[in-house]
């Protein structure tokens, strides 16, 4: 009888432990990304520096937060960069979203959740694969300078999920960023 009672208690204890484990903060964080932490990482990681176009204001260039993280403006059309001489290795547009260097022309991506032109159709796995591999969707063309992918990919998968979750909650901006342009000799 005692054995039977102890067995019942043991089973009940295990069930309680499992129930508690399921409701623990760690389990909760695995299920739901921390959007606030994502915002913090995007802010600290200076994503806005390149992905939000600068406009000239009374205090000089400032990020245009009406187009937050929407990338290089589609109406700023570039076909080639300036000639770089001497110690100059790269040049940027006044919006700081378009760059020219030995790799050709590159344009900051639209990170907003717009389905057609941003990351709206992406999954967190697509985002993680892109950052981990330095390739579009983990398999396509390479991400280009000045995207600091070698540093960003030091984030954990959990933090990349947090970043992605935040990016999916910012206002969607329809802005089709141009494709990068390879240097003439590489085309």
């Amino acid at each position, binding site marked *: 009888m005692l054995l039977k009672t102890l067995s019942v208690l043991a089973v009940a204890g295990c069930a309680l432990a499992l129930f508690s484990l399921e409701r623990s903060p760690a389990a909760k964080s695995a299920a739901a990304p921390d959007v606030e932490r994502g915002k913090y990482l995007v802010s600290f990681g200076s994503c806005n520096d390149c992905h939000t176009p600068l406009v000239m204001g009374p205090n000089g260039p400032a990020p245009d937060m009406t187009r937050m993280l929407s990338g290089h403006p589609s109406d700023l059309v570039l076909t080639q960069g300036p000639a770089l001489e001497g110690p100059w290795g790269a040049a940027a547009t006044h919006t700081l979203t378009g760059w020219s260097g030995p790799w050709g022309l590159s344009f900051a991506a639209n990170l907003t959740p717009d389905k057609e032109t941003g990351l709206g159709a992406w999954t967190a796995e697509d985002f993680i694969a892109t950052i981990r591999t330095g390739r579009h969707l*983990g*398999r396509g*063309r390479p991400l280009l300078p000045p995207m600091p992918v070698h540093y960003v990919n030091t984030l954990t998968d959990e933090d990349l999920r947090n970043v992605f979750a935040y990016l999916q909650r910012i206002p969607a901006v329809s802005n*089709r960023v*141009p494709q990068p342009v*390879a240097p003439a000799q*590489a085309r």
Partner: protein
Amino acid sequence: MDHQRLLGAALFALVTLGTPIWIALNAPRWTTHASSSPPATLAETGLYADARTLTLADVLLEYAPQYPLWTDGARKRRWIALPPGSAIDASDADAWRFPIGTKLWKEFAFGRRVETRYMELGGDGRWSYATYAWQPDESSATLAPEGGVAAACESSRGALHDIPGRFDCLACHEASPSPVLGFSALQLSSERDPRAPHADARESGVTLDELVARGLVRNLPAELLDNAPRIAARSSVERAALGYLHGNCGGCHNSRGALAELGLDLAWSFEHGSRALATTLDTPAKLQGRGLARQRLVAGAPAESLLFQRLATRDPYLQMPALGTHLVDEQARELMAAWIAELGRRERNSLAHGAAGTRR
């Protein structure tokens, strides 16, 4: 009587305990490695019986897919090794399940051996990927850096060949229902496509029939046992074109892998054949930009077909495949142009017949 019992017990113990010990002692040695730590040298992977003379191990099966991946004209050799007594489970005809310990090698040569790529299915059920770079004198090959080796050698036409990094391996092999590409029912079919670009002769490798006969592939669907896998097509050009897309694009662009959401399926499968046409013809391209075709495929118009445009360029930000090649596959370009032209003729004939039917 007691002596007889004692003798019987001793014999029983000898047989029951001794047999597995004997089998274990006499079984071929099969070394597996943790997925996180591939061997430092190619010799340690088990490819060679004698690494000094480059004598291949006895357990290897050489194979040659009928629709090989284009790698700027590299001469390739491929081998697979299965642990003794094991077999591949082909019950999912489009995603064969390989036994733990399976090893595959692919050797690339441009005049000389340059690299050998290696895959192994570890005890944890995960595939590991490594690349071994050969010394210029081909005396040995050592593990390449995780990031690969850019411009490792000259391939042809003045282009350079890059040894891929680990993430490059993952890009293609982990985007498919089975990470093993090129070793499948269609690729090893005994009914080889005579127009497949760059295919090796059938004699150079093991076939599906032989694998089944030797019990190395099991549970293959009866349809594939009765009829050798073959791409159903309306012409030999179309068959070769669909096969080329399967071998060169279908690793990433399929209906079951990481990029399935793109709705671009260029792989052939036992389940539904080829859906390359169904997912490209007159379908708006997702990639948009200046100078880019707006449709994935337009019958009769290669220049207006993004699929053709990307296959026929080596602009590094536009080319397809996105990695592993710096030279356009001219043979494939001609094949695709012929196929798209053929699609145009077929469409025009169909329209003409429709109009004639209307007049009647």
